[in-house]
């Protein structure tokens, strides 16, 4: 979080985290394509030639002044592939909230769980308090045929009271709902901290 009182801006960093090919970049692409261009910047993607995220994707959205303070949300994705593990930790630095994008497909269940453990490990290494960090789950790819029930994903990812959204990022279902939920969770935390 960065508050610049001269510009009356509050900058907040939200990271989309999850296993490879779970739809993190697709979330940002949908947000970019379906928001007012005046309210968002360019979508910057650092991709390999195979179209896989190598470092991160970045998109800033600005929501206009709220009570005289202009919130700016910087949305990042992390690379899902395991050989970019070090990069994930770098992108998590200074984050104010996380969206965990899980892949609902049956064969991806173990990978979801491993990535969640990896998130918790990275938080611990960075000295981030996992209990207080705003976190929203998104169970993506709900439009595909071979998916597990949300209850199964909830149990596997130990999602108890943490909010979750069922989504199909390619179709846009649940994308804005997820974004609103994480923004609200982050804003609520800002309110109690400053």
């Amino acid at each position, binding site marked *: *979080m*960065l*508050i*610049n*009182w*001269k*510009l009356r801006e*509050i*900058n907040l*960093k939200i990271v989309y985290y999850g296993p490879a090919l779970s739809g993190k970049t697709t979330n940002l692409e949908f947000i970019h394509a*379906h*928001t*007012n261009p005046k*309210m968002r*910047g*360019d979508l*910057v993607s*650092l991709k390999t030639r195979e179209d896989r995220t190598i*470092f*991160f994707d*970045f998109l*800033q959205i600005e*929501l*206009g002044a*709220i*009570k*005289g*303070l202009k*919130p*700016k949300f*910087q949305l*990042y994705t992390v690379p899902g592939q395991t050989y970019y593990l*070090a*990069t994930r930790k*770098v*992108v998590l*630095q*200074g*984050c*104010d909230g996380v969206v965990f994008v899980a892949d609902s497909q049956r064969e991806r269940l173990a990978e979801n769980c491993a990535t969640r453990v990896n998130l918790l490990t990275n938080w611990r290494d960075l000295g981030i308090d996992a209990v*207080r*960090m705003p976190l929203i789950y998104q169970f993506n790819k709900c439009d595909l045929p071979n998916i597990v029930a949300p209850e199964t994903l909830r149990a596997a990812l130990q999602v108890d009271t943490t909010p979750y959204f069922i989504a199909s990022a390619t179709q*846009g279902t649940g994308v*804005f709902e997820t*974004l*609103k939920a994480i*923004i*609200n969770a982050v*804003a*609520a*935390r*800002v*309110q109690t*901290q*400053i």
Partner: protein
Amino acid sequence: MARLVLSEAHSDRVEKILRELLGKTGARCAILADISGQLLAVEGRVKGLDTTVLAALIAGNVAATAEMARLLGERKHFQILFHQGEEHNLHLGAIGTSFLLAVVFSVQTQIGLVRLFAMRAAEELGKMAPEWESLVMVPGASTQTVPEDFAQTLADELDNFLKQE
């Protein structure tokens, strides 16, 4: 939650340091960012330049080379990075472990001059940095606060902001 607060007085001092750096070197612009990619301040000719994205990429760049330094057995990350282009060069310098100073300058500008004055500016900024980090750690230390019901108003207005077109 990593927190940084720049008061108006802080911003004025930072901008003055950046302006002096530009005045002495003739560089195009100077950017102060933190290692998480947040843009703290920018001075100079930035028309048409997306400094927010640049700050995010600078932080990613420095983080990637920090890993290179580690693999090479360096005890610290690289203190200076330099990118040479056809028209512009980019000098990146670390300020302690949390902040970065980037200077964009024309290829006609002397590299040595930029390096010298960027280092001096980084030293001055480094002395100020603990103030930005410590201000919010003490409740009530900041004289300015987030408006009451900021979160609630934001929540109310989010639906308008994020209307699916």
